[in-house]
């Protein structure tokens, strides 16, 4: 084994030699540098292997004496990992910065290797003064590297950094001095007693405050931000992924000396840095500065984790490694991509689209950094939150999750921009290979890290690993033609269904939702057969969405459920983002999704204290014991189900998604919220919060949602938005039905879920077919399409009759049960609201079918053909399902009844053949259908007999008094057809929710803007910040009692 001290010696020797070399052989020098860093990497890697395979670490005593008489370096697992990271990343950086190094003079190369060497020693040394020295060395080297950007801003940032560093060093030196005075040693391991000695606490405080300030805590970090902003991307990456973890490790080293309560304070300050920096980043337009904020935030998170090391115990390494690796791969990856794009302007980033691999990398890095599955930060964050929850650290969780939400906000605003920003014509996209390859390696690194995390967590094979593999597979084969991928995805889903069926058999609840997600997934993929080309980027995310949904069906624990939830959100986000005008709606969708997810995470942390990791759908919580958990989960699920107030993401997201992706993200995906609510109601039962019955509140929310959604739908001119709002209304019914919380209520909810899935998918596919042919979404631009698209018309007709709940089709069963349920529950007023909304639905349903299919055919649509075959097939299958349900509803309802827990109140629906009865009423679908059919048939024949000579007339042959209609546009009444209704009841659709959320976001961004002025860019101010921070930390740690 090579002695670890040689890492230092190689570094020093190389630096020395290079400074002798002069300026001529710069090329060779760069290779020499690479070899030197390679050798350093080799040594640390060798130790890593050795210790990993069970070998012992080593203690190096320099100068041959044992401490306290000489400095000792330590090489154990921790140091081996960190030095390996430092050196290997250094090596990658050299490759990445190769062109810079070739041009720069030899001193820069020396500075660079000194910087790496300094970091290595910071990690390994156990001597406080030595630590101080190398901190200084690293600081000077960092400032030196700033010259690389060789502009005024860079140099001034380097100078400010030096000012800050000297302030911090001063503190550290003072602390070290006093510490030495009190303990007589500089060795960290021998200073344990320092806080106990009178006056020693002050010394320790000075040391601690210096180290904390080195971690760039908010808000005393202006110098660091300026540094990030003006540093070369390669340097920025190193600052973020090497300097920051190294200093964190120093803090970690000091932990045995630092008293427990101080640790918590430091950790809490770390969390605050995390949240606040992410918050300020949302207003940032400059990419490098944004990454700077993000780096500072990640540093805060690491500091928080380090400070909690004792508290986390066995989980510490898991959490720390998760954050560390994410920071290493993803943050550096983003910095490096920044160097490739070479612009701080978000709008220029669209150029990444020219290189799909880089685009994918960017997506991976952003998702990993945002803590989405399956990347390590997701699991680390989950574990951290669960552990914090176990200690009832609700405030910590709240701050952290809010910070995470802000993180999602700026990252996904950026993602949206990259996907959508317009590229300049002929903008060159020839990126240097030596920059791309290191970035690719980072991508591979994050995937490998994810693999190890997933492997470590021992997930279920069938319900987690196979779906994940399937998703990964679709990323791999994304170059194949769309047709083949479509077949493969449909095949994969069918096969997966076949595979999981035996496991779900007997559990009808799971079968129902698995069926919705699987069948829905397959059917909504059908229209994809008519797509041309490769359709890159659609199938991986469609697979992610559907398999994510399937993970929700039978999760082993809450983590699996949450992972599926996040996967589905991420997949559908990209599917939505693929639409032409989808940047804003997709962003909104992501924000709301993430908000809901974090609320859910907090709830799971609380639940963890009651019932452990067990999946919440499988447990039974006694009534009225878990109100707050119930409320949080209900909010999270209602957000997905778009309850009013939380619905504003929905219409945009559904409408702007690609036409044939909409059925998937709406008709199918929205049921995830329903699934959550159903499980919630069945496993928690009624709960109270502050004395209020939550279900009662949910009932009102459901009723208002139903009215609101339907009211909003009637004023829409856009076909997809109309159907989207109608989904809001339908979700209102389901929420209401669940809130009724009786046997009948649950039956209605389940029945409606299935029915809504069928008719909404049908309508959306049909709409997609129409839009595919007419190339417009505005209904008033259509009209008279019944003649060219009769099948689509019939489908829409059946869809709207079902939706409206008219007998004799299946929708009536839902309405009938609703009436009985509200009478039995005695919720008359809410019930009346539900029925009102049902009738309001007539308005938009009429508009939907008449504006599109009836009325006057437009000239430019005269040659329109029926929707493509692949659009029609799934529709007809669904129509068939509706027809069967209409005649024999008991085929569905009887199995559904069996899953309703006996503990539910109220009477159950009784079946006698086709006759359904309750104590309050009865209904027989079969005889109704027979009577209606017979009547209709007879009357039809009567009409045929009488009007057998009827002539087909031309379009304009109408009774038009005194004038002749000359264009279809002037005769087709569609635009704003319910103007009178708006005049009368338009006040009901005042966009209060939209205003509220927009105002909220305005307030947040305005405050962020104001806060940013704290960073004046003045070095002296920054120095003052450091001192103020030190003072505040002093108060926080000791309450001012140390002296």
């Amino acid at each position, binding site marked *: 084994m090579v002695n670890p001290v040689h890492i230092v010696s190689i570094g020093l020797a190389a630096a020395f030699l290079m400074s002798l070399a002069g300026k001529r052989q710069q090329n060779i020098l760069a290779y020499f540098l690479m070899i030197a860093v390679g050798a350093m990497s080799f040594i640390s890697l060798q130790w890593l292997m050795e210790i990993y395979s069970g070998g012992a670490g080593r203690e190096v005593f320099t100068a041959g004496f044992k401490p306290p008489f000489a400095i000792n370096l330590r090489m154990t697992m921790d140091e081996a990992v960190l030095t390996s990271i430092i050196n290997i990343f250094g090596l990658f950086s050299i490759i990445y910065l190769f062109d810079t190094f070739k041009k720069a003079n030899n001193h820069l190369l020396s500075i660079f290797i000194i910087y790496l060497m300094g970091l290595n020693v910071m990690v390994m040394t156990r001597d406080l003064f030595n630590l101080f020295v190398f901190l200084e060395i690293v600081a000077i080297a960092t400032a030196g590297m700033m010259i690389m950007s060789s502009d005024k801003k860079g140099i001034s940032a380097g100078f400010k950094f030096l000012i800050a560093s000297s302030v911090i060093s001063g503190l550290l030196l003072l602390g070290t001095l006093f510490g030495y005075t009190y303990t007589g040693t500089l060795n960290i391991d021998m200073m344990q007693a320092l806080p106990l000695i009178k006056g020693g606490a002050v010394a320790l405080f000075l040391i601690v405050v210096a180290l904390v300030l080195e971690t760039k805590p908010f808000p005393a970090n202006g110098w660091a931000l300026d540094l990030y902003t003006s540093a070369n991307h390669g340097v920025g990456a190193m600052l973020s992924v090497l300097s920051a973890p190294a200093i964190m490790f120093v803090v970690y080293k000091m932990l045995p000396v630092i008293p427990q309560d101080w640790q918590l304070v430091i950790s809490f300050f770390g969390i605050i840095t995390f949240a606040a920096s992410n918050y300020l980043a949302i207003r940032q337009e400059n990419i490098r500065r944004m990454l700077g904020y993000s780096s500072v935030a990640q540093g805060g998170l690491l500091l928080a984790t380090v400070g909690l090391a004792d508290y986390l115990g066995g989980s510490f390494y898991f959490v720390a490694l998760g954050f560390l690796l994410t920071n290493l791969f993803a943050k550096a990856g983003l910095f490096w991509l920044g160097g490739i794009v070479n612009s701080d302007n978000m709008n220029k980033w669209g150029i990444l689209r020219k290189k799909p691999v880089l685009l994918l990398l960017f997506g991976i890095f952003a998702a990993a950094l945002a803590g989405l599955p399956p990347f390590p930060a997701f699991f680390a964050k989950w574990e951290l939150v669960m552990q914090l929850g176990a200690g009832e650290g609700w405030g910590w969780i709240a701050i952290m999750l809010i910070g995470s939400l802000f993180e999602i906000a700026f990252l996904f605003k950026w993602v949206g921009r990259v996907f959508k920003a317009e590229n300049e014509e002929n903008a060159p996209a020839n990126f240097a290979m030596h920059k791309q390859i290191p970035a690719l390696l980072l991508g591979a690194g994050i995937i490998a890290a994810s693999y190890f995390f997933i492997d470590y967590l021992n997930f279920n094979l069938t319900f987690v690993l196979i779906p994940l593999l399937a998703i990964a597979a679709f990323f791999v084969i994304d170059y194949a033609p769309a047709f083949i991928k479509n077949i493969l995805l449909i095949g994969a889903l069918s096969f997966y269904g076949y595979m999981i069926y035996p496991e779900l058999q007997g559990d009808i609840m799971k079968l129902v939702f698995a069926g919705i997600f699987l069948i829905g997934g397959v059917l909504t993929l059908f229209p994809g057969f008519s797509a041309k080309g490769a359709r890159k980027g659609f199938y991986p995310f469609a697979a992610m969405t559907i398999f994510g949904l399937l993970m929700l069906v039978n999760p082993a624990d809450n983590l699996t459920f949450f992972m599926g939830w996040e996967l589905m959100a991420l997949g559908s986000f990209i599917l939505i983002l693929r639409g032409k005008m989808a940047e804003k709606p997709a962003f909104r969708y992501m924000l709301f999704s993430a908000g809901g997810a974090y609320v859910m995470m907090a709830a799971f942390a609380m639940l963890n204290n009651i019932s452990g990791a067990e999946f919440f759908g499988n447990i039974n919580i006694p009534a009225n014991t878990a109100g707050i958990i119930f409320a949080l989960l209900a909010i999270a699920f209602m957000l997905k189900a778009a309850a009013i107030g939380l619905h504003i993401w929905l219409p945009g997201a559904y409408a702007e998604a690609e036409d044939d992706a909409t059925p998937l993200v709406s008709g199918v995906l929205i049921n995830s919220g329903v699934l959550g609510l159903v499980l919630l109601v069945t496993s928690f039962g009624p709960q109270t919060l502050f004395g209020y019955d939550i279900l009662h509140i949910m009932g009102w929310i459901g009723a208002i949602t139903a009215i609101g959604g339907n009211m909003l739908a009637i004023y829409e001119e856009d076909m997809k938005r109309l159907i989207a709002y109608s989904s809001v209304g339908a979700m209102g019914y389901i929420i209401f039905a669940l809130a009724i919380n009786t046997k009948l209520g649950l039956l209605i909810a389940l029945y409606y879920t299935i029915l809504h899935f069928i008719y909404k998918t049908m309508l959306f596919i049909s709409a997609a077919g129409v839009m595919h042919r007419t190339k417009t979404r505005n209904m008033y631009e259509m009209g008279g399409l019944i003649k060219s698209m009769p099948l689509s018309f019939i489908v829409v007709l059946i869809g709207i009759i079902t939706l409206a709940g008219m007998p004799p089709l299946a929708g009536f069963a839902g309405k009938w049960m609703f009436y009985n349920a509200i009478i039995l529950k005695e919720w008359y007023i809410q019930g009346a609201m539900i029925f009102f909304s049902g009738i309001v639905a007539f308005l938009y349903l009429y508009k939907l079918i*008449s504006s599109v299919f009836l009325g*006057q055919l437009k000239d430019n649509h005269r040659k329109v053909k029926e929707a493509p075959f692949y659009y029609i097939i799934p529709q007809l299958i669904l129509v068939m399902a509706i027809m069967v349900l209409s005649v024999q509803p008991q085929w569905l309802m009887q199995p559904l009844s069996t899953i309703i827990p006996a503990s539910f109140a109220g009477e159950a629906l009784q079946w006698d053949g086709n006759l359904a009865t309750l104590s309050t009423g009865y*209904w027989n679908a079969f005889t109704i259908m027979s009577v209606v059919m017979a009547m209709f048939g007879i009357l039809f024949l009567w009409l045929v007999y009488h*009007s057998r000579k009827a002539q087909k007339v031309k379009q304009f042959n109408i009774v038009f008094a005194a004038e002749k209609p000359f264009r279809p546009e002037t005769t087709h009444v569609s635009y704003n057809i319910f103007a009178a209704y708006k005049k009368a009841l338009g006040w009901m659709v005042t966009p209060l929710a939209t205003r509220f959320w927009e105002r909220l976001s305005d307030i947040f961004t305005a405050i962020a803007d104001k806060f940013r002025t704290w960073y004046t860019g003045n070095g002296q101010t920054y120095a003052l910040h450091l001192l103020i921070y030190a003072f505040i930390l002093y108060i926080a740690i000791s309450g001012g009692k140390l002296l």
Partner: protein
Amino acid sequence: MSIDWMKLLFALLGLFIVLNYGLLQYGIIRRITARIGKRIGMPVYQPYIDLIKNYAMRSQITHGVMYYLGPVFRLAGGVGVFMFMPLIFGSELWSNYSFSGDVILILYFIFFGMLGMALGASEGGHPYSFIGISRGLSQFTTVEVPFTLAVIAIAAQSGSFSITEIVAAQQGGIENWNIIANPFAGAAGLLAFLGMMMAAPFNVVQAPTEIPIGPPTEYHGTYLGMLQTNRAVLYIAEAILMVNLFFGGATNWVELLLKVFMVSMWPVFVGLVFPRFRIDQSIPWFLKIPLILGIIGIFMI
């Protein structure tokens, strides 16, 4: 499924009676309105003449399938409402097909005809049809609110949505009638009934002067005949519904027709006294006093 021929026969017989009664009553109502307007008015048998004339019309055109089916939907809707309605309390044979469903079925079956008519008229492509339909549907949404509340109140009172049960609960004297037992619900129901009948002041849907007869503008001949047939049947069926819900039902035909006549006069008299509302006036009107009455009616349970 075996067909109960006896039941079918009685149902058709009932339909025949109601159709004739409906035509006759329409004639009488027209006559009354004319007299109040100091006109002589048409003969009482005029609706018969119109009907025969329309069914015998020679020239027929069609704008397409949906246009063609519109009147079929409409008439099937009207006849359906009748078919699912029990007529005479205590009589199995005169209870039609009410064993298929309760009052909810009838409430929702009214929409069946409306929607079919709306779609058929829309295919005609005439702007007046669209205007009429949009007005009709808009007004109907709020008409239904007090009516639904009234029905819920009454159903909750009698513990059932079954019309037979509701009528049964009202037997034994006028004081048991729902209009007396729950006057607020009854009032809400009666006010909503004005809207359902689309008589003045709520007749802007067909507004004969501005948009000549609204949705059916394009219909003529047999189509119009079917629509007229429907009007005769549906109006009586809806009046029977009111009788059953609020006025104690009927135990024989004479009582039934008498009560129906009285109920039908209510919108006639209101219409004669009040002028027509604009559509944006009539929509919110139902959400004011009738709605409040309906809510009070619910709290009276």
